[in-house]
Every structure is written in C-alpha cells, then in structure tokens.
C-alpha cells in the first residue's frame, strides 16, 4: 500500500477552497432560499420542472470550481479529489441544485479516457461547460458494461437512463456498445438526434432524465473495449463524490434536528432531554463520522494510493448510503408533525439522501463487491 498523507491531502489550498465554498453557500443558499426555489409547487402531481439558479452557477464557474480536478495540462487547476470532495460535502449540506457533482464525475471519467478528445472536453469543463454521465441502462444496472445505446459510424442510437442533472448539462459522456464492446462518446445536449425526456423524480433538488439518441453524431472519447474500463477507473472517485454529498446532507439533517430538539418542548422537557431522541441522534453522528472519515480516506486513496481506491471507495459509499437513510429517517421522526410537512425544509434533504443512497449502487451492493475483494468470490 502506498503511504497516504496523514491529512488525507487536505493542505492549505484544499482547506481554503472548502472555507470559501462554505461562505458561498452560507451567503447564497440558505435552506429557506432553496425551499422557495424548488418547492414552490407542493402538489404531488406537480408538473416536471428543472429548478435551479443559473446565476449562481455562473458564479461557481467564475470561481473556477468546475476546473478544480481538471489536470493543469488540460487547462484546469489540477487539485486532488479531496478538493472536489470538500466541495461536494458543502453542496450536500446546502442541498444545492447544480450540475457540479455530475461534472466532477464526468471529469474523472474523461481523465481516465486518456484521449485527445477527452483532454479537449476536460478543457471545456474547466471553462464552465456542465457535463453529465449517461452510462446507465433501463434497468438501472450498476455494472459499467451495461448500456442500451449502440454506436455505429459515429452515430448513437438507443436510450440511456437515469442521467443526473440532464437538463442542466451542456454535454454528455455516453457509454455505447459497438460489436458488444463499450466505448465512450461525447455529445452536446442540443445536438441533433438528442431527445432529453425528463423523469418525474421525488428529489426536488435535482433533475434526472432518460435520453433518446437517433443517429446522433458523437465524438469518440474511448474506443469500444476501453469505455467500461474508463468508467471503472473513475468509479472510486464518483463514489467519493456522492458519498461526500451524503455526508454534507447528513450533517445538515443532524444539526437541524439537534437544534429542534433543544428548543421543542414536550412533557415539560426539551425533546433532546429524552434519551429516545438523544441516543439515536448520537448514533446518527457516529454514522456520519464513519462515512466522512471513510470518504476522505477513499478520496485520498484515489489521489495517492490507487490500488486501494476501489476498496476504500466502496466502503465509503456503503457506509454513507446507510447513513443517508438513517439520518433522513431520524430527522423526520424527531421533528414530529412539523417534520412531516411540506413547509419544513427537512424533506428536501430527506429526498436528496434517498436519491443518493441508490446512485451508483446501494450499501448492500457495495458490500457484496467488497466481500468478493476481501473474502474472495463465494463458492
């Protein structure tokens, strides 16, 4: 095992970046503001909208956040994954609707492609082009060789599913099969033959779609046979980013519930007096800390200890996924009646967490993969 830096790679630059993100979200993205933006229509049969603040996105681009993990050679800042993870944690804490996390995931896939076209695309990301992965089939498989899109003569056909932030992205990195082998392709969101069909999703802080390609001309990033390998290589980073989002959202849920438990009085005592509230909140904290430390460790492994990256990333996603469910459920429960209402902000984070827990594999899935790695494939 390569020796990882003790501090997970959180040097001065990374810490400064995180602190500035904290300030940015504090100034611009109170839960109240997000709620006003994404929850203005409460009807369960509400129409399907993609609600986000493009002005803030523009500011983010100007702050250089899209360039954070783009290599310097491709025109980026070339910071380690822990920097993106620090930002992802703040984004989760704000339940911030933006294509930034999708763009980070795409960044790591493009990095793994190691092609000129991929390098060019990375440069565009550094310049602010929101990019999302379109690599999932209709069954929502978490295996990187599964895709329902084909590529022939440079043209995509078929449908890709569960694309995150699809209506916020400027371009997509698409996995498609040619002669049974998976390649990766870049396509603009407004290119001919690209039809984005929004999903009606529960999480109000995101958008998701399936995308139909009809003879849509795309640029090859990784040749058939190399595409799934590139996704696999990037997967530890992707898992870290989602895990960090859950850690941030979990911390918001914990702290918000703690504040409520300090002030809400029942049976002549603040709720937090009761161990039936206090101890589960402590358990939520323990789970968040586990997830946070595992996520930092996994990100650091991606940066400095590649051979252990997959193992540690699966640990992080597994722990963070279970924590996401637990932190959400206790937040609603301990907010009591008010936590069950639309007007309370808790449901924004609750829904984001439930969305996150299944993204790129739930806890059980990653534990099964870890068992294969650490115990050996079962007889």
């Amino acid at each position, binding site marked *: 095992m390569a020796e990882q830096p003790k501090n997970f790679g959180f040097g001065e630059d990374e810490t400064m970046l995180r602190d500035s993100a904290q300030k940015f979200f504090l100034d611009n993205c109170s839960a109240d503001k997000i709620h006003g933006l994404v929850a203005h229509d409460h009807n369960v049969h509400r129409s399907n909208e993609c609600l986000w603040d493009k002005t803030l996105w523009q500011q983010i681009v100007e702050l250089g956040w899209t360039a954070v993990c783009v290599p310097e050679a491709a025109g980026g800042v070339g910071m380690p994954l822990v920097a993106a993870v620090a930002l992802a944690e703040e984004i989760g804490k704000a339940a911030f609707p933006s294509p930034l996390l999708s763009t980070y995931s795409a960044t790591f896939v493009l990095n793994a492609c190691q092609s000129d076209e991929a390098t060019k695309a990375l440069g565009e990301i550094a310049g602010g082009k929101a990019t999302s992965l379109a690599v999932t089939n209709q069954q929502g498989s978490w295996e990187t060789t599964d895709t329902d899109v084909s590529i022939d003569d440079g043209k995509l056909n078929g449908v890709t599913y569960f694309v995150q932030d699809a209506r916020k992205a400027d371009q997509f990195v698409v996995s498609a099969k040619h002669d049974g082998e998976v390649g990766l392709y870049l396509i603009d969101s407004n290119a001919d033959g690209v039809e984005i069909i929004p999903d009606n999703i529960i999480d109000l802080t995101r958008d998701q779609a399936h995308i139909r390609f009809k003879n849509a001309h795309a640029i090859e990033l990784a040749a058939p046979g190399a595409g799934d390998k590139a996704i696999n290589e990037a997967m530890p980073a992707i898992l870290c980013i989602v895990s960090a989002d859950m850690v941030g959202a979990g911390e918001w849920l914990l702290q918000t519930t703690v504040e409520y438990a300090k002030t809400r009085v*029942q049976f002549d005592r603040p709720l937090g007096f009761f161990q039936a509230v206090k101890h589960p909140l402590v358990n939520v904290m323990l789970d968040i800390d586990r997830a946070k430390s595992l996520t930092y460790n996994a990100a650091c492994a991606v940066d400095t200890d590649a051979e252990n990256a997959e193992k540690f990333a699966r640990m992080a996603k597994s722990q963070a996924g279970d924590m996401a469910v637990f932190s959400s459920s206790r937040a609603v*429960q301990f907010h009591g009646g008010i936590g*069950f209402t639309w007007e309370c902000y808790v449901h924004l984070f609750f829904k984001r967490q439930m969305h996150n827990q*299944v993204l790129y594999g739930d806890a059980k899935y990653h534990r099964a993969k870890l068992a294969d790695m650490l115990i050996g494939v079962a007889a």
Partner: protein
Amino acid sequence: MSKADNKDTSEQSEFRSYCQDWLAKNHPGRPDVKIPQGALELSDPAALAWLQTWQKSAYDAGMIGCDYPVEVGGGGKTDCQAIANQEMQRAKTPYLPNIIGMGMAAPTIFFHAQDDVKAELLPKLLSGEDIWCQGFSEPGAGSDLANQQTFAERDGDNWVINGHKVWTSLAHFASWMILLCRTSKDDKYNGLSYFVVPIQSVIGNGVTVRPLIKMTGETGFNEVLFENLVVEDRYRLDEVGAGWKVAMTTLAHERGAGPLVTPASGGMSLEEGTSVSTSSTLSLINLARNQNRNGKTAADDPIIRDEIIKLVIRQESMRQNGRRTAIPSLTDHPMRIPLQGKLVGTELNQDMAELAYQIEGAASSLNVTDDNAPAGGQWPLAYMNSFGITIAAGANEVQRNILGERVLGLPKSK
C-alpha cells in the same frame, strides 16, 4: 375486547349466518369513482358519498354498532361487532369512511356523554351520515397530549372556544369533532375538558378549516382554527377537568384496547389490475421478482431475500400476536400485546417501504407521476407517508414509554 372462546355463542352464531346471507345479496359491487387506499386519504366528495352510502346500508342492515344499545342507535347485541367485522372482511366489502367517528368518538361519547347527547349524535355517526374528526393535536401538543392550549372559557350555559388544532384528518368533510381543550391553566392534567363540537355547520362562524400539506405534496390533513366558537355546555363529556380521563377512553379504543369493538369492514381490492398494497409483504416479494438487480432479479439477491423474510416473519408474528391476545391465559398482562399494535405495525410498514428503495434501485427516484415508476411509485410514497403514522397518535417513542411503564412497570421517564 373480543371473547376468548373458540366458539360462537348462539346469538353470535345466528348473527353470523344473518350477516353472511345479507352480504351475499347486498355487496355494493365495484365503485364508479376512484377510492383511495384508506378513509384518511379521502379527498374526492364523490368517493366519500359512495362510501357513505355503503356505510348507511350496512348500518341499516344492523352490521354497524351492533353492540351499542338500541336507544343510541345500536343493535343491542352482545359481542357481535367482531362477527360482523369478520363477515364483512370475508365478503371483501369496501371500507367504512367514518373511521374516527366509529373508532374514537363513538365509544367516548357512549361512556361519557349525557343520554340526550348520545341519542342525538350516535345514530348519524354509526350510519356514517355525520363524518367525525378528532381535535387532539396542536402545534405545541404532539405526543405530549396533555399540553393542550386550545382554551374553552365558561360563559353561562355555553363555552367559548379559541385555539388551533393540527393534523385533523377528515376535518374538511366533518360535521363534528371530538375536542380536547384546556379549561384551567393551573393544572396540566386536571385542567383539561372534553367536548363534542360542530364543525361543518359553523365554518365561517368561529371555525376555519385549512389543508396541511404533507412532505409528499399530498393533502389530507387539516388545521382547524377556533375563534370564539360558542358551544352548549351539554356537549361537554364528563366533568369539567375530566378531559384527560375521557381522552384515555378515546386512546384506548384507538389502540384497539378498549371494551368496545370498532365496526370495520374492508377487503375489497380498490385498484384493479395494478393492485399495489404497500402493507403486504407479498407485494414486496412481487416487486422484488420484477425488479432487476445486476443481472438477476432483486428476488434472487440473498441479502434482499433475507431482509424480505425478516419482514414476512414480523408480519406473521403480528397476526399470531393478534390471535394470542384473544386467549387471556396466554399472556401475563392483558394490555401487553394490544399496546404493542400501533408500534409494531407502523414500524413494519416503514421498514417494508424502506427496503423497497433497495429493491427498486435507481428507479426508486421516480415519483408517482412518472409512468416508469415501479409499482406506480407507491413504495417511496408509502415510505414518506409511513412517518405520518410513526409520529402520530403518540409518537412511537411515547408508545415505548407506555409499554415500559404500564406493562413492564418501569418508572416514568419524565
């Protein structure tokens, strides 16, 4: 509580035959309007009207309120409601809409109201003509029921009521409400009194009903605001200051632990074709059979299987607990199992729906409005709604206190 014997009495046996005959001839058939899964989710007046017609017809046939005396609109029978309930279930009838009325208001009125009030209110309650709602919860009185702030002030032969109730199901349809409020500020428990108050007839005249929106975006609950509502003293139940005691009658019956069996029917499948019951482990197994999980179905995943079977076992244990409750010699404390019901039932439903996310995988992200949502998106919806019931009617934390204190005899936690 129901009788422990295995065999029907002759009255029960005769009544059972009568129910079977009547139901064979008078099942209302399928509704011509869309009926939600439960009465508390009613929002379409046409659906309510259809169900009220059914309740009235079952009432007229003597199947609802059979154990209440004839003077208050009942059937004057002994231990027959459970028989009627069994036969209605078996005949797969629709459910009864006036559930708060029958399950909570009726026994409370019966045990605590003046005779003339019983005779006035109970017949239309049992027949379902009057829909009832319950005014217990307040912004500051959730699980801490005794912390009521809605105030009733005496004014000669009347009371003037001011306050704010929340989470009142069916208030938008209700003619009457059972209302717990404060009549003295000096004593938390002995400063409460219990009333029945009109709602529908006085909207705009002291009463405002506003819908509350759930985290799912659905409505169904309401806020009810009282502003100088005047209520006659005869509508007070039991003594001034006895509200807490009266409320215990209500809660005992709500938990199925009171002496009167609540009229209940049901069993009819409401969603043709795509019947998704999010309270059935069989539905969950079907979901798992139809969802892909990395090349196999979720039903082939050993971990999902184990989790499902855990839930199947819990569900079966609830059924068998219910069976055991009826045999007093098989429990050491008469309330030991009845007081578990709300707790174990609501947590089972919550855990079932939570597992559904992992069975559905990426598709669990889809809302009920998305055509591609597995099982119509009912499972994630059910998960969110499950918190309504783990929180309501005494949060489950309070249920555990009750069990620890009343059944195990541990000291009070406050």
